[in-house]
């Protein structure tokens, strides 16, 4: 870090100075102050996506992936040395980008306020390297209940799960997304993907409300943490950004750790899968590529793509929210947390890690370096999220199951619960009620009664305590029904999409 170095970001190909920016200023406000008012504030908490922009980020290899993020949550300082593309940078009236053209001609915008954000989310999916138009559209595939959420061009609607539109009802936006072709050879944004991503800048930004620092490596990060007790560690900033915007939180010292190389490893070994704390959930999903089925089932249900592109596994462990979806799953997987401090590393079982509401065993001078999942994994796993909305909602109740069933008997059961206590919890009593029992409807019913009584659910605006208890009670019945039922093939519902 070199205090005094000119901080800047490349936006739509133009180098713009970040000098004079306060560390509490978010990227959206900074972009708008530069005159780039295409991105909008709709909620300031990463729920609506009207502020979405694209950042050049590392792909799974050595190239670059255009990644859509909520600019309202990202500190402007985190843009130092980075490359950003906004709706203005994709095209202009008279020379529309393919994404913009499809949206415009199909009635994909009405009031237009959410549109620049949709454009960026859609463009990021348009440029996704592994998006493939050669998807096999077999009869079985046609009957898939979620078929309508993936286009013939490989466009996954999930890419738009973090964008809200209040006008259109979404159908024309879906049609626009599914009509997109491949980027042209000469498309400079597409070509940029072949090059290396921008390196993480060592950033030091002081302002009236405090300091933002992005250390170059773990050692420097730990030194900063030791020197600034109480410093806020920020990775994707999907939680801290909300505090800043909605609750007026201001920190004297913020340390950006999401680019620390030591926190960005993913290793699948014979005994353990180790996931670096600073990997985003999208990176975890891509990196694991289905090798941890429970996480593979969970991740698409976790918030939205826009959030998952920023939010990290370490951030989830750091905030330790009782309603975070990842933590019940990690509990069911019997994961361990690797904490690192000046004195070295230690490993803590996740089941022991939570000490109270948003409190953990992590000391003030430590950070989460990784999470370890022991292998082999259980054979029967499932993640049940109960929420009002399937995309981008917070769970009323989350239940993660990991069962080993052999010879028709439950040999081992691990169940993690979210939303039913002050911390994520293990359903130990239910686990005991299942283990050694035959995996039958009778066992499921008996254990369901036990699960119904786990935790201490509360009444709130998301759900009543009674409902939370009730769906805890039905979760095992559902698991049993689903784990014993064959695949259901059904006829498609109608004339296809659209009017």
């Amino acid at each position: 870090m070199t205090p005094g170095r000119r901080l800047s970001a490349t936006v739509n190909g133009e180098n713009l100075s970040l000098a004079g920016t306060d560390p509490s200023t978010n990227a959206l406000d900074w972009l708008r102050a530069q005159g780039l008012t295409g991105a909008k504030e709709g909620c300031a908490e990463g729920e609506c996506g009207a502020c979405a922009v694209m950042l050049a980020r590392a792909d799974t290899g050595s190239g670059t992936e255009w990644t859509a993020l909520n600019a309202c949550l990202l500190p402007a300082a985190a843009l130092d040395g980075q490359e950003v593309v906004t709706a203005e940078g994709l095209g202009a009236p008279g020379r529309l980008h393919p994404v913009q053209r499809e949206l415009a001609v199909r009635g994909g915008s009405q009031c237009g306020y959410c549109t620049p954000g949709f454009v960026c989310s859609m463009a990021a999916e348009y440029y996704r390297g592994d998006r493939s138009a050669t998807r096999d559209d077999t009869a079985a595939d046609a009957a898939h209940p979620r078929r309508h959420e993936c286009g013939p061009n490989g466009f996954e609607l999930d890419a738009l799960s973090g964008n809200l539109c209040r006008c259109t009802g979404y159908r024309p936006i879906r049609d626009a997304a599914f009509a997109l072709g491949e980027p042209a050879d000469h498309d400079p944004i597409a070509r940029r993907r072949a090059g290396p991503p921008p390196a993480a800048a060592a950033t030091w930004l002081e302002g009236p409300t405090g300091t933002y620092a992005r250390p170059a490596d773990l050692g420097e990060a730990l030194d900063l943490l030791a020197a600034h007790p109480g410093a806020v560690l920020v990775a994707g900033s999907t939680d801290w950004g909300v505090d800043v915007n909605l609750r007026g939180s201001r920190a004297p010292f913020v340390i950006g750790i999401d680019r620390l190389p030591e926190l960005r490893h993913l290793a699948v070994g014979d005994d353990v899968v180790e996931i670096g704390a600073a990997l985003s959930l999208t990176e975890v999903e891509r990196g694991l590529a289905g090798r941890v089925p429970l996480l593979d089932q969970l991740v698409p249900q976790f918030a939205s793509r826009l959030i998952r592109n920023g939010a990290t596994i370490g951030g989830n462990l750091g905030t330790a929210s009782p309603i975070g979806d990842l933590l019940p799953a990690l509990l069911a997987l019997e994961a361990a947390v690797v904490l690192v401090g000046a004195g070295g590393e230690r490993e803590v079982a996740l089941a022991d890690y939570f000490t109270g509401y948003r409190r953990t065993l992590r000391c003030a001078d430590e950070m989460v370096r990784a999470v370890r999942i022991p292998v082999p994994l259980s054979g029967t796993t499932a993640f049940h999220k109960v929420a009002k909305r399937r995309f981008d909602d917070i769970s009323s109740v989350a239940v993660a199951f990991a069962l080993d069933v052999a010879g028709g008997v439950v040999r081992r059961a691990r169940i993690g619960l979210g939303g039913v206590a002050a911390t994520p919890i293990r359903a130990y009593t239910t686990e005991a009620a299942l283990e050694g029992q035959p995996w039958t409807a009778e066992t499921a019913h008996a254990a369901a009664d036990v699960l119904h009584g786990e935790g201490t659910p509360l009444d709130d605006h998301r759900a009543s305590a009674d409902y939370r208890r009730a769906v805890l009670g039905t979760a095992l019945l559902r698991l049993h029904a689903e784990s014993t039922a064959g695949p259901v093939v059904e006829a498609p519902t109608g004339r296809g999409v659209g009017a």
Partner: protein
Amino acid sequence: MTSPSNQAADPVVGQTIPHESAALHVTGAALYTDDLTVRTHGILHAHPVQAPHAHARVTRLHTAPALEVPGVVRVLTAADVPGVNDGGVKHDEPLFPSEVMFLGHAVCWVLGETLESARLGALAVEVDYEPLSSIVTVREAIAADSFQGGRPKLERGDVDAAFSGAEHVFSGELDLAGQEHFYLETHCSVAHVDEGGQVFVQSSTQHPSETQEIVAHVLGLASHAVTVQCLRMGGGFGGKEMQPHGFAAIAALGAVLTGRPVRLRLTRSQDLTMTGKRHGFHIQWRAAFDGTGAVQALDATLTSDGGWSLDLSEPVLARALCHVDNAYWIPNLRVNGRIALTHKTSQTAFRGFGGPQGMLVIEDVLGRCAPRLGIDPAQLRRRNFYVEGQHTPYGQPVRHPERAVRCWEQVLATGEVAARSARIAEFNATHEHTRRALAVTPVKFGISFNFTAFNQAGALVHVYKDGSVLITHGGTEMGQGLHTKMLQVAATALGVPLSLVRLAPTRTDKVPNTSATAASSGADLNGAAVRNACEQILGRLRVVASARLGVRDVDVRFENGLVRAAGGSEQVAWADLVSEAYYQRVQLWAAGFHRTEGLHWDSTAMHGSPFKYFSYGAAATEVEVDGFTGAYRLRRVDIVHDVGDSLSPLIDLGQVEGGFVQGAGWLTLEDLRWDDSSTPARGRLLTASASTYKLPSFSEMPEVFNVALLERATEDGVVYGSKAVGEPPLMLAISVREALRQATAAFGPSGTSVDLASPATPEAVFWAVRQARGGGQPPRLAPLVEGGVGLVPEQPDPAARPLEPRSEQVASGSGG
């Protein structure tokens, strides 16, 4: 007004074209009010001080500490108001209140060099409150006899006699939730004062003229000293019909007092906690049927949750009463309405304007009673449709009832409803934990402002010497495509290509005394005014052309930028004719005007013909419900909707789809929760953020969504045979609620009647599934009562004041 000589063979109206601003939307180039902030030098930012009590007296307001905060320029309080300290039209909305009426009420505003300094300044303001007792729910208001405004009553036939002789009598209760508009763009105004003291306010407002009037009366100025402009809105949905005025007035007041531009933009949580929403309703009803399922009588009392001030609650309630019949003939009917005064945001206009709540009454009745009558719900509905010659309960002839039938029949056919119903029955028989159902519901919605005076509009059309055309009209653009339609109307009326016509932003110094862009009437009213202006100009040009072409002026044709004689081959380019007219000193611009004829309405008697016409539609919705959690999916939606001859099919399709999904959100997902405990948080909106108040997202879009516009549907006497489209489709979403009810009932034995809470969230559906399976009454729901006297709706005091003509009227001029 239709003149055959300018009906082009290939009119621009009716063409499928994108929104006029689509290219600006998708590139981020479209400007919204707050986008002006960075483009305005020296602008100040306003931040409110919001009260933490549902009801309290302000005993001390100490603003000096705020001025100590660096960057704070001024604190605005009641003492600063040169005119009237009121931000509403009923004079019950003090802009700077001494009595806090809801939690979040702004007691003063801080102006700062930055938003951060204004925010910190607001935190520094010291306010002492004396908390007072509060009323939070409608039921509390009913118990405390806390009402406001008039109490309308709609009555026809002999209700009591009909009940005493009826074969079947049912009664029930229903609590309908409100709805947050959640336009993606929150309220915003930017104000400045020019060198002559003229106040210029750019505002995200559906009603610039009324914003102008309120700003003027707050500032103590005449209307001509205030100009309001609306570039466009990032959504309105009724939420910017009356609510923007106070915020515009604060910004204008700040600009006048500081001499600097002022920006006031609400954050999402400020918008959620300060501005009005769709009215929640409490409904008691009793209904009588004969043995064939024909409705004999309906007796209902509707209590709306008005919030802290009257706002638009009276006309909303009047419209609710006028839509209790929906598409059904109800020979004997008595509906009482009243407005609760509660310590919450002041509920206001929202797409449908009481119509949805009114219609839900009869649809809830039919949906709950059908199983008890042993009649399929769709058949029960169809059985009761209006037929030609019948009148609504308020005395208006039901014109074109066959259109409801055509929509219904077409949706049954194209939606393959019979075949799918059979497949659904098969599915349900073979799936233990999942049920599907398909419900069909109709919509009949009256178009016009109930308040007759609002049914007028103006426009200004300029033809420049080069033949280019600039139009301005009184309507505002909030995404509904009004400007697109107006461009098409002007191009069609003048017979020029669309590319020749431009549209300038809506502002009060171009077209004065406008009505709100509301009641779905924007295109009807403004379109007629634009057309009127165009026809004035064309009338003058026709004289010039007739001399030039040597034909009678009635034989001159204006088509696609060419002017020629009917049947003749000689032609003149539009631009040449315009140029020639200029040199002949012919006026090339005109102010257009329109008033809707044939309306009359007695709001005291609740009688008359308040609507120009009815819009019709029908929707068939198939859902699947998961018995484990109550979660559900919209598998398929088929809609046939009547928009007359569509002015702009892509726009109209978008309105139908968007309205439907927004209605589905209201009925299933969107859940306003207020703290009604006795803790200090009483009155707090618990769902005051995007993370707690959930709108439909992509995952709630129907998986298959087929929308058709009814064909052969020309509407006489409306611009180019078109019909309004903004509101009616929202109510097609009642089919979602009814499908959920039917799918839920399918978990129980045949004949199961389900009591479904509103919104029908997964939790509500879960409890309904429990009920259907014989597991007891869902929480907080009163069961359907069958037979006997039943639950007789509370009959309000006969001496209560009815609505008055002024109930729907608003302030005019300063102090009005």
